[in-house]
């Protein structure tokens, strides 16, 4: 440090000069800056936060933002991760939407009804999410746009304890990443 001092002093003494030269054409006030003024502290190099925009930007009428709710969930039979015909139809529609919205990245959640054990349902939910993902990959959606997550029986659609509730809970459904 001791040996660097003269160099640092030289640089700091030059900075106002450089600044003055740089600013000379911009503003007269800047030129009048007294030379003994200390060089700008480093934090001044970061631009100040942009002023908060108070007037709303006039957005052109755009198509409504893509929502995960536009993607149809897929339902499964008890203890099964096999895609039924209705599931394939739903996934075909989902694939079309995903092709049209090429920037959308999704999470495929696998879920189960409450009738399996916690641990088995975590595995089954994973298989359901994976089955949906595999189908979408076959339909041309890049794998890089999709993640899977299994919630087992921890996040039911319907907290009821009958077949109507269970049928809704055996599902793969979609969220945005």
């Amino acid at each position: 440090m001791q040996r660097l001092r003269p160099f640092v002093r030289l640089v700091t003494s030059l900075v106002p000069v450089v600044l003055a030269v740089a600013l000379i054409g911009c503003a007269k006030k800047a030129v009048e800056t007294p030379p003994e003024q200390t060089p700008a502290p480093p934090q001044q190099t970061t631009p100040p936060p942009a002023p908060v925009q108070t007037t709303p930007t006039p957005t052109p009428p755009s198509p409504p933002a893509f929502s995960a709710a536009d993607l149809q969930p897929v339902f499964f039979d008890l203890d099964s991760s096999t895609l039924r015909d209705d599931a394939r139809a739903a996934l075909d529609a989902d694939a079309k939407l995903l092709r049209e919205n090429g920037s959308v990245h999704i999470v495929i959640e696998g879920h189960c009804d409450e009738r399996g054990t916690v641990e088995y349902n975590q595995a089954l939910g994973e298989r359901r999410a994976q089955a949906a993902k595999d189908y979408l990959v076959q339909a041309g959606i890049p794998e890089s746009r999709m993640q899977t997550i299994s919630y087992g029986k921890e996040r039911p659609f319907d907290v009821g304890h009958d077949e109507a509730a269970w049928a809704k809970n055996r599902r793969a459904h979609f969220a945005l990443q």
Partner: protein
Amino acid sequence: MSFRAIGLVMFGVLTLAVPARRPASADDVRVDISSGQGRRIRIHCEAMTSSSHGRGGPSSVDADEVLASDLDHSAVFTVSRSWVANEQPFDVQAFVGGKWNVSGSQVQLTGQVLDFPARRPILVRDYRGPANQWRALVHRFADDVVQQFTGELGVSETRIAFVARQGRDKELYVMDVDGAGITQLTHDHSIALSPAFSPEGSLLLFTTYRGGTGPQIDVVSSQGGKEYLVSGRKGNNTSASYAPDGRDIACTLSIDGNPEIYLLDARGGSPRRLTNNRAIDTSPAWSPTGREIAFTSDRSGSPQVYVMDRDGGNVRRLSYDVSYTDSPAWSPRGDRIAFVSRTGSGFDIYVCRADGSGARLVVGGASNENPRWSPDGRHLVFASNREGAYALYVTDLDDRPPRRLETGGKEAMSPAWSPRPAGTRAMTNSTP
């Protein structure tokens, strides 16, 4: 008490800090009881006396009831109480009682067991510790009484880990087996599941969604503290448990695209795949020797429990007597396996021999899930909705109905039973 009688009594002093090993004595009374199946021994609890020279000791009424409950819940004794009017000593084998001596912040319990009807001492032992830990002293005495009559310590000093529902979330908790000292271990506002104690009880492995990208395996001190990630690989990281030697972790991962059972080292590294099947393989449960692992697979079309060697070889189906089975748990002596079998809308709990034979229903009605053995193999803890909301219950595997564990009024599931506390004493004369 004659001098001869005193001479026969072995005095042992146990403190909280100093481990003590008690030599076997020729005077120990032994009654052969096969775990959980034998007739209970009738024992009469007498109110303990106390001489107080300090503050913070137990109310003797509380301590009496803790001792009586411990003994009653041991599955070894049927307890009558001297402080309950209509419970008189009749056909009992022994009296149990003692005295408290509170001195400053320290407390000493002198516990004693006397024979019936002569009131000769069978067991007299001193327990010392901080006054605010008097419950632990009572538990230790209760466990010694169990050992006196069966040859194996009781489990009053163990703990139960579980998860409790909080809105949409589940957090991890631990408490004494009698429901005291309930402690919340996680505050993640996420889903915690499937806790499992390390072999010496100091750590808990569990599944958590706190990372946000899927179920991961974490570890936390069973006394509380920071959670550490053990496995957060792509896909599922679930169902983790330590091998009996603590060196490996068995768990379910789906890194290869399908839920399979893996071994990890104790820090979660170097995965070794044990199952290789297009079906679901999950819920690994170690045999107490660590040489075999029971697990669930739906390779035959529906979930069934299988057993394999720890290298993944020699796979055989556990039982053909019961359909749709899951959640295996190997008994501490290795002779039995508990599991669940699906009914219409829930699960019954069965116990069979380790070779799959002799399956018998031990808990039915409503749904009964995640059975886990006590370290003495006399009890199973499980989660059940038999009274509405999910709660924890213990069955003593005999004709008594399951008893509910207090969990601070919280909806509770996914129990795990701790081993006996390490370091406070050595286990002696375990029954083979």
